[in-house]
């Protein structure tokens, strides 16, 4: 069979999770870049791959799939030799992985993605900042982090659900949190600072997936530099006139 094709934008958290999973597990794949900042996800060619026009998406032979969690489960099941800890065969353990993954959507993701968008990313994408939306997202984000700290990371394991090795849920959720790197230092400290277990867990997941984790996250640090530069320009009183065309979409 042909190599699996992964359509991804490394600025997108769920895309990063899928890329890292493939690399860590030696899955042979072609990465096809779809740049959201250039609205490439809205092209007719990509709509053919994923009518939802979102990233990531995969094509394996004739089979097309989107939604990162579904993709991770598919990859963990379809490719031989993937270590069991990523998606445990034991039904109870597997069920608990599903439970965190389901929880993620309307909690951690629902907080982190709009918070970053409305505090730092919007200007880069040519969108106006929306402080009210940021404030609402912050509430969800902080409550999600506190549930991670006190409930999902309870126990002695380094990973979610007391795990000793990472699962696809660890990878998905840590990639989500990584976008907080884009915030300015004060915000980052205020939001992540009180959550010691969460911080430790991010490090553990990074360690377990090195060097791919850092490699795939590189783009995030680049964008961080761009945001910084923009900020200090503004601080010098230099007006930003080079705003790009407005974008309808979000990361």
């Amino acid at each position: 069979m042909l190599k699996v094709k992964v359509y991804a934008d490394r600025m997108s958290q769920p895309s990063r999770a899928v890329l890292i999973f493939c690399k860590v597990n030696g899955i042979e794949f072609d990465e096809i870049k779809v740049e959201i900042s250039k609205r490439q996800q809205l092209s007719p060619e990509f709509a053919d791959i994923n009518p939802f026009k979102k990233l990531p998406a995969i094509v394996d032979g004739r089979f097309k799939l989107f939604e990162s969690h579904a993709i991770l489960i598919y990859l963990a099941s379809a490719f031989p030799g993937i270590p069991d800890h990523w998606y445990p065969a034991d039904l109870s353990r597997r069920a608990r992985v599903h439970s965190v993954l389901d929880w993620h959507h309307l909690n951690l993701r629902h907080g982190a993605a709009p918070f970053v968008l409305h505090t730092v990313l919007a200007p880069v994408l040519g969108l106006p900042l929306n402080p009210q939306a940021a404030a609402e997202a912050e509430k969800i984000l902080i409550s999600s982090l506190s549930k991670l700290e006190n409930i999902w990371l309870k126990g002695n394991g380094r990973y979610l659900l007391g795990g000793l090795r990472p699962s696809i849920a660890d990878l998905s959720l840590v990639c989500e949190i990584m976008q907080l790197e884009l915030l300015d230092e004060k915000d980052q400290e205020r939001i992540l600072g009180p959550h010691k277990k969460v911080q430790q867990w991010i490090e553990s997941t990074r360690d377990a997936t090195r060097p791919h984790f850092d490699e795939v996250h590189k783009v995030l640090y680049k964008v961080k530099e761009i945001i910084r530069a923009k900020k200090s320009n503004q601080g010098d009183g230099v007006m930003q006139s080079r705003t790009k065309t407005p974008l309808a979409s979000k990361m």
Partner: protein
Amino acid sequence: MGKLKVYADRMSQPSRAVIIFCRISGIDFEEIKVDISKGQHLSPDFTEVNPLQKVPAIVHGSLKLSESHAILVYLASAFTGIADHWYPTELSRRSKINSVMDWHHSNLRNGAVNYAINTTLAPALGRQLNPKAASEAEKVLLSSLKTLEDIWLDGDGGFLCNGIQPSLADLSMVCELMQLEVLDERDRNRILSPYKKVLQWIENTRTATNPHFEEVHNILYKAKKKFEQQRARTAETGTSPSNKTGGYSKI
């Protein structure tokens, strides 16, 4: 292993989906009522079962599990004799079902639940109606319905992903849409009537799961009557229903 315990409030869509699934699959279980409008989901006893304080949740032997999709997937895998169409063994079919269930969270659920709460249910839950949140939820709901109609229900199958029999995703999402029953009839028609396939799909799922479907939804039909009477009174006297119960959270 002890008998399966299902903690549920039948006013909650994901609770209904789990109860209907257990019944239709002939799973022997005990239903334990957790009345959200009385704040029972916040009790120490229930917090033991699910520290996230949400329904549904199950206890099966030593496994405690929350999140309705994770529960449905677990039940379909852990019990014998469950018809394959609910959660197909074949990997590509199963992956599509996973994909639509992932999609559900941030789209149909996010739209439907927040619309129902902010137009109708809030006072019964001790909260204020919020027209601005309602109008945002409406956008998400309408776009989700359109996506269901044009993409997920594409084909002649009658069920999601062109299925000819219902899957866990059909059950979950139809239960979600059923909460629109509590809306004002005109409003409900305005929202649903343009989506002919969606309407047909609701009927298909109802038929495939009756009599359990109707029986488990009875409570919703009763609530619907109550809201209708309230609306009639409000129209007569010009006052809105008073807000008796304390401030509990959301359905």
